[in-house]
């Protein structure tokens, strides 16, 4: 079907184009060129360079010892830590994005109500967004510290624990806190996006639902949620990519450690860079592929939804 469309379009366009001289056909180029050059320079070239690096043999001094073929990919996939890193990356993305969306839906609903002090609370919500994520992460890292952390002090003074805990010391304890902080910093953006979506829902629709005798839950499910879909999808895809690529939260709190126990693929890539640039580039390529697959999947799913409606 798409083939036919192009032929038709090309056929329709062909006549006027033939009459115009070449220099006129190139007319739009000066206007397009900066954007094209920009994309070539900041997207295509680094990506090509990344793939090239992953196929070289580069030692710790930075000296290039020639082509390595797929050796670095084999080395990467042989790393016993990789399966755990991949699993944790998937869990991390799903859990953080899921929780963020859920909590944000509720918070957007709250902030859409009229209540005294709404303005102030809306402003307050921006705070985690305005603060640098790395700063927030380092702040939490020290609040959770075993020796000087304020949380240990609080729990000790309240008599809830009998000795100080290292909340970020091992994966089991650290992971829930990492998720908590990641959700905390993702909430403002998501809530505001959903809030903007809620405000576009016209009041008449609710009136109609009311007249038809829909319950509150029915109204929310059958009216609010479908109308909120565009905003919801935007928030979802931005969060998915952001959280998947998230670096500062994990790096600021555990640096992916101990070992690579709390590292996602992005953090793991950074850890590899310390001793093997090429293997790190191979990890980047894998990461890049995953993001592209995620985007394609998302496009497919969102279009499928549209067709259904």
């Amino acid at each position, binding site marked *: 079907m798409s083939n036919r469309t192009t032929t038709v379009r090309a056929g329709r366009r062909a006549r006027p184009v033939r009459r115009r001289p070449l220099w006129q056909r190139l007319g739009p180029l*000066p*206007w397009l060129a*900066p*954007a094209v050059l920009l994309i070539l320079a900041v997207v295509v070239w680094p990506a090509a360079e990344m793939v090239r690096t992953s196929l070289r043999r*580069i*030692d*710790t*001094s*930075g*000296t*290039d010892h020639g082509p390595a073929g797929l050796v670095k990919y084999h*080395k990467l996939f042989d790393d*016993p830590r990789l399966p755990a890193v991949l699993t944790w990356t998937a869990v991390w993305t799903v859990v953080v994005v899921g929780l963020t969306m859920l909590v944000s839906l509720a918070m957007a609903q709250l902030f859409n109500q009229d209540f005294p002090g709404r303005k102030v609370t809306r402003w307050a919500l921006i705070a985690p967004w305005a603060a640098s994520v790395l700063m927030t992460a380092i702040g939490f890292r020290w609040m959770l510290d*075993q*020796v*000087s952390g304020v949380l240990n002090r609080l729990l000790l003074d309240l008599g809830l624990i009998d000795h*100080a*805990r*290292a909340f*970020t*010391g*091992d994966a089991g304890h*650290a992971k829930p806190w990492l998720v908590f902080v990641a959700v905390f910093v993702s909430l403002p953006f998501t809530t505001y996006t959903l809030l903007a979506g809620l405000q576009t829902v016209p009041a008449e629709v609710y009136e109609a639902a009311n007249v038809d005798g829909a319950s509150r839950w029915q109204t929310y499910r059958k009216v609010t949620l479908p109308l909120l879909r565009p905003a919801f999808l935007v928030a979802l895809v931005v969060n998915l990519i952001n959280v998947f690529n998230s670096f500062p939260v994990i790096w600021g709190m*555990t*640096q*992916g*450690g*101990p*070992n*690579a*126990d709390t590292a996602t693929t992005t953090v793991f890539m950074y*850890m590899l*860079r*310390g*001793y*093997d*640039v090429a293997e790190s580039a191979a990890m980047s390529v894998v990461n890049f592929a995953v993001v592209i697959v995620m985007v394609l999947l998302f496009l497919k799913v969102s279009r499928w939804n549209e067709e259904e409606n």
Partner: protein
Amino acid sequence: MNPRFLLLSAVGVAGALALSACGSGSGSSADGTTTIRFVAADYGSNGQHPTQAYWQGVISAFEQQNPKIKVNLQVINWNDLDTQVKTMVQNGNQPDVLQTGGYADFAKNGLLYAAQDVLSGPTAIDFIPSMARTGEQDGTQYGIPFVSSARMFLINNALFRKAGLDPAKPPRTWDDVTAAATALKKAGVEIPLGVPLGKEEAQGESFIWMLENHGGYQDANGHYAINSQANVDTFTQLKSWVDAGLTEQSPAAVNRTDLTKDFASGKVGMLNGFPGQLADLKDMDVTWSAMPGKDTAGKTTLGVGDWVMAFKKGGHKDQIRAFLDFAYSKDNTVRFAKEYNLLPVTQSALTALQADPDEKALQPFLQVLPTARFYPLSDPTWPAVSAQIKTQIGSALTDPRKTLDALQQAAQQAGQ
């Protein structure tokens, strides 16, 4: 996009090109002056005693004596130094002189001048022989020692007395350590024994404990032996201390800098210390002693050294020699060691510091320095292996055998 934007971006690109051209300020100019590029590590902490100021002083004095040579200085902090130097080498833009933590991979790739090419006779023979030997790779010296440091066991006397222990009798064996740590824990000390196996300095902390059980990273033939029985036993012992709650809760996540701060605030009973702590501990009652060994007090300790090396690329051998001879004069080396509480690498500075009444605190370290053992610094795979040890060896506290086996395998694969 409008033409004005185009113009602006063109100006931007041209500016960036001009800036990057300035960045590599090395070479000779028309009036016969030669500029050499010098990249050094930053030893200053908390913004005090910036290393930039030290080198600036040395350089302006040097340039006054040698009007034909200019030195272009760049001081980079330790966290970024390796990456930045790596990038310089990758881009073929290496400095003429580099001062950093290791030299082996540069030497292996034939990027460096031999030390004898860039040091005059009197400077070359002044180095402490064991130090100079550590700078050798395949019989030629490439690494020029810059400063050194050594580790000693450090005890908080007040906490020891509180636990009913005598700080004048520090633990000599691992059994003594167990007994002392148990007593400290009973007395309510938060961290009886500090074991910082976080990635900042895990390769050093591990090596010390390995050495006290006659283990190490390599065997006598220079082959990696990370998973030797001695090393597995060492980590089994460390694990038993961790499991008994005698250390901080998760040593694999604790970095040395943080733990030494906890020590300075009186929360740690004992740990492996280094002279850099002296400034923080000036008003504290502490004991420095020999490392406790598995069965007897340790006869050796970990020595670490930082290195100067000269790159061939710029071809400025004579200018580099002039600068290094000046930088290694006794006044300069003594001043640097005193400023940053580091140990000297030259005989003349060692003698001067031993005779210096102001440097009493440094004396125990100067004494153990000749017995110190170093990392396998001349092995070109060591930088990569060391980086992996830093992040992974903390896991050996959970499963010694498995972690050490994995590291041994990684070490054997390194450099392939």
